[in-house]
């Protein structure tokens, strides 16, 4: 077997099970700290009042939505280059969480936009690109469900993810260009109140919370995918307490 012996699903499965809870707990603690900063420590903004506190959810999830897609691209390149099933499973495990983060970013952005600009959707450059990113996630999901053979689904989704990842910067640039052309340099989400350092810290803490949450969820999900794909492999019978609730 090639040098990536340790990356076989059988050896990765217990490792993922051991690692995931650590990330889950640290995500929970970071989230609590972030919310505490967001609501108790950060001052009321003189311009937007309390509405700006939504940024502590909106900005981290927006960052994560794009970051997750690029990580999926990374795993997809590995899956195609080295033909390793595990990398394809990792890419597959990230898709639902990525789509979820994108949805949250859009939802919170709209609720923040209403009090700030008076409308839920103002074709802001970042929000429009976020919406297109959501379509990219749905595209990968739809392709995954449309192909039955797992190996072909892995490789087809890998190609689509890579093509999508290459297009993300182009989409963001073209939407930015389109936005400034038509609306001029209107108030966009980035022109939020001057970034007091406390707000930045709050957002960074929430960003790490979202990141660790994503890692934990994708590790748990990749375990489920491994079980689904390798259900008849012999190493599965050695798993402790398989029939019971999976730890």
């Amino acid at each position, binding site marked *: 077997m090639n040098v990536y012996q340790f990356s076989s699903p059988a050896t990765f499965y217990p490792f993922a099970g051991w690692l995931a809870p650590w990330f889950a707990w640290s995500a929970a603690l970071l989230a609590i700290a972030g919310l505490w900063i967001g609501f108790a420590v950060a001052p009321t903004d003189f311009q937007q009042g309390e509405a700006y506190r939504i940024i502590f959810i909106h900005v981290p999830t927006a960052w994560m939505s794009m970051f997750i897609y690029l990580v999926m691209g990374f795993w997809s390149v590995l899956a195609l280059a080295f*033909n390793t099933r595990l990398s394809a499973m990792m890419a597959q495990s990230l898709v639902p969480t990525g789509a979820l983060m994108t949805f949250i970013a859009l939802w919170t952005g709209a609720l923040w936009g209403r009090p700030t600009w008076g409308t839920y959707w103002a074709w802001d450059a970042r929000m429009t690109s976020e919406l297109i990113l959501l379509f990219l996630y749905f595209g990968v999901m739809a392709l995954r469900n449309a192909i*039955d*053979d*797992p*190996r072909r689904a892995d490789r087809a989704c890998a190609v689509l993810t890579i093509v999508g990842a290459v297009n993300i910067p182009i989409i963001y640039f073209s939407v930015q260009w389109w936005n400034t052309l038509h609306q001029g340099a209107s108030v966009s989400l980035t022109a939020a109140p001057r970034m007091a350092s406390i707000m930045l810290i709050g957002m960074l803490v929430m960003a790490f919370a979202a990141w660790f949450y994503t890692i934990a969820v994708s590790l748990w999900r990749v375990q489920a995918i491994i079980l689904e*794909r390798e*259900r*008849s492999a012999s190493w599965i019978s050695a798993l402790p307490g398989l029939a019971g609730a999976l730890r």
Partner: protein
Amino acid sequence: MLEVLELAARRGDAVLFRRLGFRVEAGKMLVVTGPNGTGKTTLLRILAGLTLATAGRVLFRGEAVAPGSPKLRAECVFVGHLPALKDEFTAEENLSSLVELSGVRPTASQLRAVLSEVALDAQRALPARVLSQGQRRRIGLARLSLLRRPLWLLDEPATALDTTGLALLGQLIARQLAAGGAVVASTHQTLDLPPEHLEWLVLA
């Protein structure tokens, strides 16, 4: 000429075969038989470089070949279940298009000669749409006779062939073996070929 080591293949999560090994020497024909669904087609597609094996290696003249490798594509011809004909094209157009795709530029007279050889003279200018399955198969045989390739991979080549078609197929294979080529074919019909050239692989 062709060697297979420790080959394994899966379809979905069903294992088709595992640790499969065999050699095919020049001038020899390997007949792959076995009930349906045992992976005969998958094996041939792996040898042709269309499908990825889950394990094992394929050596062509001692050199390992990966799927889609240029060496394999230049030296081997694969005839699958589908006759690879365009319904809109005539028999002659189909033949010349397929042969040119393999990098060989036949003259019009060669095309006509080989078509008459497979008894498709009258149907030369008919669109493939109107030809019978057997006639469409014989266009495939005409292609085989035009291409000089050392390795033939034939997936159920005898299907839909009538007696004259079968005789033609036998002749073509005999000529290929005599010219030092090798053939791997999955088939159920017994072809009247000298047994000393044949080897059998039964997939259970």
